[in-house]
């Protein structure tokens, strides 16, 4: 029972926070909605906030491979929309970019160039579409692939921990429950989710499958502002048959970010993330184990976008 209490408390706190935010953002619409809904269906507009255009970002990070700095220039299409009279809420984020920089601070430092592509899509069913507040059921999937190659003849000067010279792929499938609030030009979702995530680890560059749970909060003001946070916790089990050992990796990750539009076409954003793996390496034959903690992976990304939409 122990671990459930903070999780439930966290979900409750998130929902409470969402209510407070919703009240702050649009108290005029929230108060009369219940009475009006009983009389006649309100003519509530669909929510839509999309962006299609050019993006660039600079990411600074530290972790297992030291300090790194990578920049991207590419194209991205993302958005959040409701449809079928707000019964469905979908969110997507697709992008492809050229990527370059210094992935790690191994010596001598070597620059790398490559590319990255990502797809993140989520569909949500609002169970009470006529109301601003509704329970929400979501399902989604995401994948992110990156390939980098050194730019100089010093072809092997980077650690193979950081995926250099190979395609590094992460992915996840997610299902969750939560709440959705839709107001004029505003959308707020708060969900608790379970997911299966595949990601490389230090010992398994090819990746391990993690079973994870988490919570997420997203606030969007159409083409004006967005705020997103996710916190996940999960574990993966790997075995090395030759040595008869098992290794349970626990992954904890918190990420969040915000974007703000500056005029009709430009936006800037800032995202940050912190992740850490802890491991319990067990040797069953000798009944010994070692609890280890990896260097945390920290990242901060400054981004900017230029919309090519005709709005």
């Amino acid at each position, binding site marked *: 029972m122990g671990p459930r209490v903070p999780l439930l408390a966290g979900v409750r706190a998130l929902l409470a926070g969402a209510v407070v935010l919703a009240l702050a953002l649009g108290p005029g619409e929230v108060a009369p909605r219940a009475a009006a809904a009983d009389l006649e269906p309100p003519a509530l507009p669909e929510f839509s906030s999309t962006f299609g255009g050019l993006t660039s970002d600079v990411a600074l990070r530290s972790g297992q491979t030291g300090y790194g700095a990578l920049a991207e220039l590419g194209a991205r299409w993302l958005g959040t929309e409701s449809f079928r009279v707000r019964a469905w809420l979908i969110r997507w984020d697709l992008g492809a970019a050229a990527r370059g920089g210094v992935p790690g601070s191994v010596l001598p430092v070597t620059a790398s160039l490559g590319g990255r592509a990502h797809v993140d899509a989520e569909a949500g069913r609002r169970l009470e579409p006529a109301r601003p507040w509704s329970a929400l059921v979501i399902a989604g999937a995401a994948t992110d692939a990156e390939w980098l190659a050194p730019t100089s003849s010093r072809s092997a000067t980077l650690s193979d921990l950081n995926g250099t010279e190979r395609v590094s792929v992460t992915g996840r499938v997610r299902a969750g429950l939560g709440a959705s609030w839709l107001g004029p030009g505003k959308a707020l979702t708060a969900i608790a989710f379970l997911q299966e995530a595949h990601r490389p680890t230090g010992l398994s560059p090819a990746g391990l499958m993690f079973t994870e749970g988490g919570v997420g909060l997203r606030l969007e003001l159409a083409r004006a502002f967005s705020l997103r946070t996710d916190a996940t916790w999960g574990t993966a089990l790997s075995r090395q048959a*030759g040595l008869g050992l098992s290794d349970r990796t626990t992954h904890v990750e918190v990420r969040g970010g*915000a974007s703000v539009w500056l005029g009709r076409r430009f936006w800037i954003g800032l995202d940050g993330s912190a992740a850490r793996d802890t491991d319990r390496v067990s*040797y069953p034959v000798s009944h010994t184990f070692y609890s280890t903690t990896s*260097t945390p992976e920290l990242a*901060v990304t400054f981004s900017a976008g230029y919309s090519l939409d005709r709005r």
Partner: protein
Amino acid sequence: MKIVRTCTACSLAVLAAAIVAAACARARASWGLDAIDRMATPPDPPLACGVELGADPAAAMRAACAYGPGAPASETLGLDPSALATVPVRHVIVLMKENRSFDHLLGWLHDRGQPGVEQVPATWANPDGTGAAVAPFHETSTCVPWDPGHQSADLAAGIDGGRMDGFVLRAAFTTGTDGHVAMAAHDAPDLPFYYWLAATFAVSDRHFAPMASGTFPNRNFLLFGSNAGVVDTGNVYPPPNTPSLLQLLMNAGYTWGVYTDGTPLSGALGWRQGDPGVHPMQAFLDALDHGTLPNVAFVDGIDNVEDDHPPADLQRGETWVRTVYEHALASPQWLRLAIIWTYDEAGGFADHVPPPPGCPAGASEFTDRGPRVPLVVVSPWARRGYASHVEHDHTAITRLAEALFGLPALTGRDANSDALLDLFDFSCGRDLTVPPAPAAGTGACGP
């Protein structure tokens, strides 16, 4: 709305500053080895002799890289486990120094008391930038001020596909000199104690750095049986959950210690003084004096001063090794000791023997070994005046510890290594006394 956006932008800036500050304060990994400081070294079994190492029926299998992680040493060495358990050596001291090739440090050993080692070919030379051939030459100063490049790209250029002719050009590129320093070599009058150790005890003239790269990955091979994901020296460390010799020793109830007044393990794991298992040098000398050594001791001199890493004065490093030797010789545990004096990698100094590939090591894609480095087994049980030509790398030291303490192999590299056993003679009735050692050299570092 403008106010909201201004506040948002301010908030983003503050958040950015906070995140950047947090990222700069890079947290360290935790290795989970704290229990080593509470472990007691098990008592040594009664001293035995007469262990017959005999033929090596598994040599062909090892040469074919047939063994994998988990393989017991008794199987891969073709020895009865009970015989291995009676080997008198119960404490291994790894004196891993820094950055000297075999030809650079002991290039005249063939003519200075150990004719069994391969002589440097008279025709071997490296071209310099003008095309002139640079042959090995006697470097009279023992404190060479230049540190030739010795990471993976440098070693690939130096080895040059096995032609062993790119060291001078690469040293010129990385030191800004004519690069001739790569062919410098020291003779017995410069390093009398080093030459005496190599000629008196058991020396290998086919010991290679396990990876054609720098300190970190090569030292990782000793501890993990692989480079553990690290390609070059820098501030990248192995994942702390990587199975290691340290874990295997502790699993079996045996102990280890890291001793230095400098950077533990030359920085390969990012450890510091005060970390679990790390002790100052005086604690090592005290352990020798009192007979309280752990089962495996990793001992390093002060960086660039005692560890022979350029620009250190080699004669100071030689004096440091002699101090260790004198304490070992006087130790109540002398008859249970084996000191492995070696170098982590060749440091960009030239060597004439092309490195053979090593067996695959776990998920590592690196099988290219680095140039030869000196390796001498100093022990009452060392085969006296013996020169071994068995090809191996640092994982042979790993395999020796695994053989002595009944541990499984970590990866395919140590599983298929020979454990240095031909450098030992455990027969009974031998004269275990050693002749007096010369003093370390002095005065070759200029005024």
